[in-house]
């Protein structure tokens, strides 16, 4: 299951949803807002998503992971809106019989989420500038960092 939320992500509750008596391994990944990106001091981040399609594509990714790695459960939560340094922007959790599948599925999911979901990240820098990540050639923009 993938969820989009503007509320803080609470990993403990999310983890408990993945419990399974046949699970010997649990792997989780979290993306945190860090204070620097490509040399720019970051103050906060803003995530925009087109939710209907983000959820549709996210469910597709999770289903692919479950089939490919024979995991038991795989969930994801992505946050949108304004985030501060240290906030959790994305959480991925996987439970599986063994650790190989848990690690591989978790990695597959976060890699796919980053390139396939209609989600955009705008960085607000300490110096007052801002810029859309990955959008260096989206044409000139008054406050672009590109």
């Amino acid at each position: 299951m993938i969820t989009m939320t503007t509320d803080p992500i609470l990993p403990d509750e999310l983890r408990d949803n993945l419990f399974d008596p046949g699970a010997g391994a649990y792997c989780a990944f979290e993306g945190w807002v860090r204070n620097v990106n490509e040399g720019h001091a970051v103050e906060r981040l803003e995530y925009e998503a087109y939710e209907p399609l983000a959820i549709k594509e996210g469910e597709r990714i999770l289903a692919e992971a479950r089939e490919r790695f024979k995991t038991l459960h795989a969930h994801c939560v992505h946050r949108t809106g304004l985030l501060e340094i240290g906030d959790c922007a994305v959480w991925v959790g996987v439970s599986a019989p063994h650790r190989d599948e848990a690690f591989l599925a978790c990695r597959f999911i976060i890699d796919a989420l980053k390139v396939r979901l209609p989600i955009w990240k705008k960085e607000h820098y300490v110096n007052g500038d801002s810029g859309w990540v990955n959008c260096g050639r989206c044409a000139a923009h008054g406050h672009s960092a590109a």
Partner: protein
Amino acid sequence: MKTITVRYFAMFREHAGVGEESLTLDVQTAADVFAATRERHRSSEPVGHCKVAINDDMADWDAPVADGDTVFLFPPVAGG
């Protein structure tokens, strides 16, 4: 001519100054919509770096668009 609802996201929305507009366009494919609205979203990205959806389904750039369709123009994504 077709009436197409075009939706802009992130940088494209900021450039267009609107999130959505209805346009009458002489277009056959999603790529045509991208090109026909270039002055609005002001993108110099190759379409290959961007994504498109038609009526809430991800689509290829050469997918045909029909009168009344909604076309979603997505700049390069950066989830996670």
